[in-house]
């Protein structure tokens, strides 16, 4: 445990020290109280460190940057690094969670709104909570009373650190698959490189990405059964024929019913294209080599008026007459010459008037300049 100073520290020094450790300091706290708070925090951290096997501690603390995961975390998606990762890092299941420990956007760290009575608005102990979101990524959220720079130390198969920028309240943390009792400590790194934990997460188990080697002797798996497993894995991973050593998992999500809009891939429509050829736009100009398109449609409205109570037909089909004797019909108009016979018969059925209407629609598509 690094002792930052042998000399007697002033209250201001202590407050600074405590803040660095993520402790909240009351305005009326005396120097002695703060000193005790700091000592407590350090004792907790020592206990947490002591629970780790010494070999692991050494490996990670000597060369924290050598850890491939941390490397990846601090550099984003490895776009410049060609060396293969020494650990079997599985690609994140989805592309979105670029580790937010780098360049957090303000959006990602600000929950849309804090609940009016949310605990987050009250002063509280520093804490860190983790949820396994996939075999190789944890979702971690934390509360560090004073916001200062934070390090997350991940205890999985190895021990590795993830730096979290100031003000962050969550991170997606890379982790080793199929590990039980994974924990994350939140802490600060001293100038000497020593890590001081100020909070410790709940333990979680990360899911496996391959079949276990544990076999129940009463249920032995013979080569024929292995064929069954291999086929099921292939079907899960789609066209890929990779075996359990490198399983990629299914691409068949539950279709999102609640999104009752047109953004679903059932039906093989493109999720972004809007409705295309409908009767109104029949004959539109539209080779869709690119996304640009033009569709032109025409609807014809035939309207008129006669004596209320009369009978009106257009092309032999009866038309609804409003009580004031007016009528209006709308129809999609395709290419061609269309003849309409509009016929009205008086309410007493004695008199009939006929109007003939001819409409021509001709639509030509041509290249613009």
């Amino acid at each position: 445990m690094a002792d930052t100073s042998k000399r007697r520290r002033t209250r201001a020094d202590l407050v600074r020290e405590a803040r660095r450790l993520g402790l909240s300091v009351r305005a009326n706290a005396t120097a002695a109280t703060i000193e005790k708070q700091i000592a407590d925090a350090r004792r907790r951290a020592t206990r947490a460190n002591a629970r780790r096997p010494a070999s692991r501690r050494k490996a990670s603390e000597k060369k924290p940057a050598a850890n491939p995961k941390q490397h990846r975390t601090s550099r984003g998606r490895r776009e410049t690094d060609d060396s293969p990762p020494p650990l079997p890092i599985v690609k994140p299941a989805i592309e979105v969670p670029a580790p937010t420990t780098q360049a957090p956007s303000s959006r990602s760290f600000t929950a849309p709104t804090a609940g009016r009575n949310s605990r987050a608005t009250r002063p509280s102990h520093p804490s860190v909570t983790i949820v396994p979101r996939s075999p190789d990524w944890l979702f971690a959220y934390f509360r560090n009373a004073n916001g200062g720079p934070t390090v997350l130390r991940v205890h999985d198969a190895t021990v590795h650190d993830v730096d979290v920028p100031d003000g962050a309240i969550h991170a997606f943390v890379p982790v080793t698959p199929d590990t039980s009792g994974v924990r994350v400590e939140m802490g600060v790194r001293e100038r000497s490189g020593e890590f001081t934990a100020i909070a410790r997460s709940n333990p979680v188990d990360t899911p496996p990405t391959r079949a276990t080697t544990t076999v129940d002797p009463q249920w032995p798996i013979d080569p024929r059964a292995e064929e069954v497993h291999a086929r099921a894995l292939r079907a899960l991973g789609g066209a890929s024929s990779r075996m359990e050593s490198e399983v990629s998992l299914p691409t068949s999500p539950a279709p999102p019913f609640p999104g009752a809009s047109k953004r679903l891939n059932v039906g093989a429509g493109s999720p972004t294209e809007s409705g295309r050829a409908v009767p109104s736009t029949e004959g539109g100009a539209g080779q869709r080599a690119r996304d640009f398109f033009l569709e032109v449609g025409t609807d014809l409205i035939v309207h008129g008026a006669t004596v209320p109570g009369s009978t009106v037909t257009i092309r032999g089909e009866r038309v609804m007459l409003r009580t004031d004797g007016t009528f209006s019909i709308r129809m999609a108009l395709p290419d061609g010459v269309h003849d309409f016979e509009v016929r009205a018969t008086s309410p007493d059925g004695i008199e009939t008037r006929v109007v003939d209407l001819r409409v021509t629609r001709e639509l030509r598509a041509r290249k613009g300049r």
Partner: protein
Amino acid sequence: MSGSLCLILHAHLPFVRHPEHATFFEETWLFEAITETYLPLLESFERLDRDGIRYRIALSVSPTLLAMLDDDLLKQRYEFHLEGRIRFASTECDRTRLLPTYRALARRALESLEHARSLWREQFAGDLVRALRDLGARGNVELFTTAATHGYLPLMLGRRSSWRAQVRVGVDEFRRHFGSRPAGFWLPECAYQPGVDEVLAECGVRWFVVDAHGLLFATPRPRSGPYAPIVTPAGVAAFGRDPESSRQVWSAVDGYPGDPAYRDFHEDVGYALPWDYVGPHLHVQGSLDRAPTGIKYHRVTGGRGRKEPYDPKRADEKTAEHAAHFVESRRVQAAWLAERLGHEPVIVAPYDAELFGHWWHEGPAWLEQVIRLAAPPKQNDVRRLGSDPVSRMRTPTDVLDEGTHLQRAVPAASSWGEGGYHALWADESNHWIHPRLHEAAQHMEGLARRHPRAPGRSWLRRALDQAARELLLAQASDWAFILHVRTVPAYAASRVRDHLDAFFEIAEAIRRGRLDDPDVRECIAVRESRTPLFPAPTFDYRVFQPDRTVRSPTVRARTGASPITVKAKTGRIL
């Protein structure tokens, strides 16, 4: 050699009911699902029953969906919605008078809507819950249940009280509606974490389903992979989803619904016709957003060119072809598996019910034909598919009732979502809901512990029950999902916020002893009236009471971490 085919349908919609608005877009999810999925499926099952087909299929109906189907306001609004759709379809018949092909399609749409209206009014008298109860009683369809509000269990920090509330309320609501105990439990999104099975066992559940890798990666490795159920240490059977039959139906690339002959889901006239014409027919008054009308004239067609008009006859032929293909594939698959495993395989094919009819227009017809082909024929009947016996249809309960010896194993954490785990429900778009849900769940546990016996019908009891209801509603997996797919993210976010705000306000009122305040009482009464699901005598906030282990003082030892982290358990049971 034959095998068992377990067809499973899972019907679920989140609880959406907004009496405070005259019309509400998100309520149309239910209305569309009734018209396009629930009525056609119920009709199909009735027809099969009437024809004396002996089939077996398992159908889970979520408690939130049951609550909505049972709600008078929503029933009334459905009728109003359906009338509007019928009006629009007849307008379309007029508009397409110069286009014979489209006119025939418009007439077809109108007829099917009118048919839905007669089913709704005459055949089922607007009571689909009773229709489901009758369906279950006829014995071919086994009804089962799912989590209270479809909460995503593995993202609850292993908190038993939340798991128990989701499971227990799901089971209790099933009993309230159907009068019997469900044997099966559909894990929302097939999402499993070791430990969930203990809670299922506590609630008397006999089986659940995990995705294939949940069994392929189980410990110890199950001999038959996903093709035989295993039993967890808690004594509940876990069935594995068959990836092959899933792909044939689900996949957007090589699944049946993407066939060029089928009706294209996306080609809705609501998005294409002139706004002045179609706008007044869209559901939400005053909104300038386009929305689907349910009238779709085109088939998938394939390629990027112009979509061809839908041809019902051709689609019917394809439906028959695909149904035969599905059953034949299962038969071949079962034979292949049986040869290698040395026993009859159990092929579990679960689907979201709403896939059939809503997303895949021809789905209900396909399903009915699959059942007719796969169900054991009546005596002296000629087999329809060659001389080999086809797969026998069973439900997981039937399989268990046969008393086969099951291998003991612990399924691996998994889900059927993209990637196979929980990432979709905890990503950049939706992670922010989880810390707040966890905090509320912890609060609720505290409330249930501090008030172990709130007297019935007291305001304290009402407040605690309502707080529990709000938390359950906030926990629905649908909100995270919608935030992820970005269809109506603002609505999903507002629902999470709204329920959690209400929860914390009620919790605060209880904590400060303000339940005598008329304003507080009114607030609780309003919330009760807006969320009329899980009625009180059956529903009891005490489902949230924590485990004894969590209450023990050693666990509460101060280690400096937050109470959440101290109390959380991994749920590991090995």
